[in-house]
Structure formats: structure tokens, C-alpha cells
């Protein structure tokens, strides 16, 4: 009975890694997070309710693991190595310098957001969850998702606008 969930887990892996990257600000930290979350999930598969969204369940475990971790290490927010963020686009086809700079700006802006806003933004804007689904993952009311998103976006747009306009 857990076989299909394991298969689903493999299939979900790229998205889980992306989400963990977005909330932790680093691919390595993100992968550690995904590993921890997978171990947790597999040790309590009986708690997963068939018929509910498996991806949402995993996002929730990842987010909770991240919160645990930041509490433990007392990190406030995410540290992005600015040099790394500026240089690395992980082989993605962002050929132009201004393109890379803009993506680096976005990563830095994301890292500067408060934890709860960052998670909401990652779930909705990157993972494409509905407000209701994001609310379920974060265990908060839909209205709270809406206001967190709006605040996160206002800050992001502020930071991104000069870069976007500058490149145009």
C-alpha cells in the first residue's frame, strides 16, 4: 500500500526540491530539508489520508521541518550568499548578465521576506497551489494566505521593479 506513495514521492521530488530551495534559499539546504521531510513522511505514512493531496502533505512536512530547523539554529530568515546568488543560475539558460542579475535580485528579495510570507508565496506563486490548498498546508485561514501574499508581493515588486525597468 505504501508502494504507490513511494512512487509518487519520487515523482514529486523535483517540486519538493524547488519548494525547499525557495523557502531555505539554498539548493543544498533545500535538499537536506527534503531528505529530512521524506524520512519523516515515510515513518508516518499511516497518518496520510488517502484521497487528500499527497503533495500538500509533503509541502507541509517540509515547511514544518524548516520552521523546526530555523528555531533550532536561531537563524532569522534565510542567508543567501550574494556572490553565489549572483553567479549561479545552475546552468539555466539565463545567458544575459542582466537576466542573471534580475534572478539574483529575486532570490535575495525572497530571502529577505519574513518566513510566513515566503512560504505562502512559494506555495502559490511557484507551486501553483490555490489559496485554499496553501491555507491547508500552512494551517492558517484563507484570508491570512491572501494578506501574507499581498504583503510579500508588494515588497517583492518594489525590489524587482527597478531591476525590471532598468533592463528594459
Amino acid at each position, binding site marked *: 500500500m505504501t508502494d504507490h506513495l*513511494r512512487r509518487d*514521492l*519520487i*515523482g*514529486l*521530488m*523535483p*517540486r519538493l*526540491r*524547488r519548494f525547499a*530551495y*525557495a523557502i531555505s534559499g539554498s*539548493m543544498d539546504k*533545500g*535538499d537536506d530539508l*527534503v*531528505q529530512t521531510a*521524506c*524520512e519523516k513522511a*515515510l515513518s508516518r505514512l499511516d497518518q496520510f489520508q488517502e484521497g487528500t493531496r499527497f*503533495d500538500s502533505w509533503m509541502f507541509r512536512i517540509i515547511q514544518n521541518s524548516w520552521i523546526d530547523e530555523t528555531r533550532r539554529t536561531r537563524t532569522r530568515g534565510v542567508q543567501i550568499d550574494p556572490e553565489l546568488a549572483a553567479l549561479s*543560475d*545552475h*546552468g*539555466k*539558460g*539565463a*545567458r*544575459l548578465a*542582466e*537576466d542573471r542579475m*534580475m*534572478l539574483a535580485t*529575486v*532570490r535575495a528579495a*525572497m530571502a529577505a521576506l519574513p518566513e510566513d510570507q515566503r512560504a505562502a*508565496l*512559494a506555495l*502559490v*506563486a*511557484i*507551486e*501553483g*497551489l*490555490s*489559496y485554499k490548498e496553501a491555507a491547508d498546508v500552512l494551517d492558517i485561514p484563507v484570508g491570512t494566505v*491572501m*494578506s501574507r*501574499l*499581498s504583503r510579500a*508581493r*508588494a515588497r*517583492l*515588486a518594489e525590489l*524587482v*521593479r527597478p531591476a*525590471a525597468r532598468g*533592463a*528594459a
Partner: protein
Amino acid sequence: MENISKETLSAFVDGELSPDEMDRVAAHLETHPEDHAYVQDLILSNALLARAFDAPMEQPIPERLRAVASGERANADHAPSGQSSVIAFPRRFARYAAPAGLALAASLAAVLFLGGRDAAPTLSIAEGLLVVDGPLHAALETRPSGAAETAADGARFIPSATFADAAGRHCREVEAVAPGAASARVVEALIACREDGGVWRVAAAVAEHPAQRQGEGFVPASGGAASGIGAALDALGAGMALDPDAEAALIARGWN
């Protein structure tokens, strides 16, 4: 007219308002350039956000994670399963203009196109759409005319010509073929012109349904005033199509 909160504009971008509210906000945007600009900023940041963190979508799954998920010991000496991993696209963004299909819109029409919640199984490429990533971007940016770029779901994008418009921008004509059964195929032809930063803006898009193909050629995609690719080329002041060598050189130089 009344003020519309940033929260509502943000929900508009996500298509999270009721149909009536979506219409109301869309009408409001037509007469409120500042809010319209804000909505465009949100859409731009969304598209950039998706690209900023999409590296894991394109890489193989690290062995340690595959091992954990499949219940093997992390450092067990085990051959990779060889099966490629399925990439689950978020349904709302399952379109073609971006990494997970996220379309970046510039015109109000394109904003409205983004606003819809359900992903139709056809290609919906609206005029004014900014293409920043994804298979369509890859086709525009890297494929010589005649070569297809195939999306994960089987949709194909085939550039057919490259030319300069009256403003000196590089533009390309692309044929888009929807995935799925051959009988239900929708072909869409579009013209996109390259702007700064590697962004392509769709200047015209026309759909061609097989049933309507005889005699008339392309028909407008959405009942608009567009009158086919020929008219769009005229409107752009399109020059002669580049020869394959010149096109290849442009692609090799990254369109500079």
C-alpha cells in the same frame, strides 16, 4: 471609481476572485493605469520567481533523495532505477510559456487570459504575452527554423521564419501544435519579437482549426480584429526573412 486594494489585485493575478469580481477588477484596470502597472509588476515578479528557483525542475534527482524515497539505504550500492522521474506540473501553470508553464502577461488581454483557473487543453497564447521561459521560449531562442521544440506534454513549437521588424527588433514566426489526438488538433501560428533581457513578446497569434482550414487559411484566435499572420507581418513592417546562415549566426550570438 472605487479603490481596489492591493490584496484584491494580488488575488486577481492568482485568479482567486469570483468571476464577477474578476470582471470588475479587469474593468477597473482599464481606467487605472497605476493599478494596471502594479498588476503587471506582480505578474513579472511571479514569472521571475518561478525562474529563480526552478533549477531542481531540470536536474536529475540526487541519488540520496531517490534512495530515501524508495526506501533504500542512502549509501547502499544500488544501481539507479533508470526510470526518469515524472515532473508534476502545478495545474494552474500548466501552460507553455514558462518553466512550469507560467505565462507572463503584458497586455490586459493577456492578464485576463492568465486569470482563468482551468487549464484548457488547447494552446492559449494571447497577443501581448511575454515569453520568458519554457518550451516556447526555448524554441524562439534556440531553434533554427524548421526544428521543433517539444514540451513535456507533447505540444510542439516550430519556428518557421526569422525577420527584423520596422523597429529593428528580431521577430520570429512560430507554428504551435497542441498535444493530443490528431483529430482535435489546434494549430496556432504566432509572431513574437525579442525585447531586452531575452524576453519575447507575442505580437500576433492566430488559431487554425482543421475544420476551418479550407480556403480561408488562418482564422483569428479569439474573435478579435486580427486578420491573420499576413496582416500582422504588414503591421510590424516585417522585412525579408533571414537566410538560414544569418539566422544560425544570430542564435549562436544569443540574438545580440
